[in-house]
């Protein structure tokens, strides 16, 4: 295991200390229990947005705390959902009287912990709603699974709901927008290498030098199947086709295309995939009107990528373009 860290046990807290030191203008970081809160929280009259999940997916979620995006993030241990007390503390810290929206990736652990926190916050009189993201088409039959995983679309939900909340929309409206984004977005990912959970110290799976793992999530878990390493064109096809067919996306759709790096893949390769994706979308008559390319929802140092497509409409474009000021996404003012 080769990582820049002091001890596996201390990794998350050390990184949070660094995050706190780097961005005092944007956030306040609490350690007992762990939660990252927007520096000017609670914003009176604004719906508060709380997300969270296991650590190891940075910049998700802490990197998205700030004006126009999240009000708080709750980092769990590596790849482990945060606990209800963290989420409850964050909920209290960001409640500006207009209620709190939880943005939760659909994993049993995340859902259960956020649910328990919502029950506790509800008992304290805080109105809580939740958007569960479940955009991963690699998990196909939701009757026989815990449902689709929440992956790339989570970033887009956080940005777009963040803009809606900043714009003064009510809790149920922001939640409805979040569900619309989730409903119109689809993702799929692939790994070239596994990652090493620091406390375990071993790769989460083994891959031969000429193999890739298709249909992975963001936790180093094995994917749906393994295949011989393909070209970028083949890989883009492999990821895009199930995405396109699932919604389905149709000729004439305006979409946001998000090519995400899993943590160990450099930008140059992501742009190669974007080139292939743009070609595939053009071939289907889709118009990519917005894009996002980079490592935004990662799995430690895993090499690989995921593709997310989101069908847009005028309102979603406006909300996407709205100003955002966080450690990992910044534009407008």
């Amino acid at each position, binding site marked *: 295991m080769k990582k820049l860290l002091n001890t596996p046990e201390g990794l998350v807290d050390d990184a949070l200390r660094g995050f706190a030191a780097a961005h005092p203008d944007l956030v306040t970081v609490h350690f007992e229990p762990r939660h990252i809160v927007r520096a000017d929280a609670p914003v009176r009259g604004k719906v508060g947005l709380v997300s969270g999940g296991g650590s190891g997916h940075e910049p998700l979620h802490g990197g998205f705390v700030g004006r126009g995006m999240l009000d708080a993030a709750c980092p769990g241990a590596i790849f482990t959902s945060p606990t209800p007390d963290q989420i409850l503390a964050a909920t209290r810290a960001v409640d500006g009287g207009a209620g709190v929206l939880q943005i939760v990736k659909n994993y049993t652990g995340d859902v259960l912990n956020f649910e328990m926190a919502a029950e506790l916050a509800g008992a304290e009189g805080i109105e809580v709603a939740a958007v569960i993201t479940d955009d991963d088409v690699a998990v196909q039959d939701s009757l026989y699974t*815990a449902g689709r995983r929440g992956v790339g679309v989570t970033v887009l939900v956080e940005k777009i709901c963040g803009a809606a909340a900043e714009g003064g929309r009510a809790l149920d409206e922001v939640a409805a927008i979040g569900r619309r984004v989730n409903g119109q977005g689809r993702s799929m990912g692939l790994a070239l290498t596994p990652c090493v959970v620091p406390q375990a110290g071993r790769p989460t799976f083994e891959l031969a030098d000429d193999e890739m793992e298709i249909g992975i999530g963001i936790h180093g878990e094995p994917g749906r199947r393994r295949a011989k390493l393909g070209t970028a064109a083949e890989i883009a096809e492999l990821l895009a086709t199930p995405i396109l067919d699932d919604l389905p996306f149709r000729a004439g759709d305006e979409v946001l295309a998000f090519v995400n790096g899993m943590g160990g893949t450099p930008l140059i390769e992501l742009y190669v995939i974007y080139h292939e994706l743009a070609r595939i979308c053009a071939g289907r008559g889709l118009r990519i009107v917005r894009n996002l390319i980079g490592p935004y929802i990662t799995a430690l140092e895993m090499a690989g990528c995921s593709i997310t497509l989101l069908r847009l409409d005028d309102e979603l474009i406006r909300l996407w373009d709205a100003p955002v000021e966080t450690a990992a996404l910044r534009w407008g003012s």
Partner: protein
Amino acid sequence: MPISRAAVLDWITASAGAIAAERAALDRLDAAVGDGEHGTNLDRGFQAVLGKLPDLADQDIGAILKGVGLTLVATVGGASGPLYGTLFLRMGAATAGKAELALDDWTAALAAGVEGVVARGKAAPGEKTMVDALAPALAALRAAAEGSGLEVALRRSAAAAREGMLATVPLVARKGRASYLGERGAGHQDPGATSAHLLLATAAATLAREEGRAV
């Protein structure tokens, strides 16, 4: 001979030891079908429980079990945190105020706990989760309660948990992270069922002992 407060404390302490000893093995099972940290998660939780035990030691059994549940909820995370947390919280509620437990009390407590796990996680038996160890253990306890003593009943319960755990191997998971694997998950033992068996085997080894052995 009923289960004493000291025996309950014994059980918790021994469970923490067993989880620590099996941590890497549980992680390995979880790596095959999930994200490889079930042992690390539980170990973090039970180490925190050990830290809390001195504060709980002079309370009644219900308060002890509730304290364990709250600690697990606040420190484990993942799917198993809320589930084991709920198990202990419900067992605590069912034994509130008690200084000792007859076999029937223990059975009722475990029943309440398992019911809580199912209510939270919505897993039916056969979906390759901790429920596959917990539910047979409860059933065996109920069957044994009619006629046999505490020690035998606890042993049968642990044996049933073990059978349930082993029976998860060929199953395709329908709940939790392992369900994402589909057919590829078959052939691996469920980590949660394994840790559940560990807790119940430790119960059989500790709860029926003479009072005052160790804390």
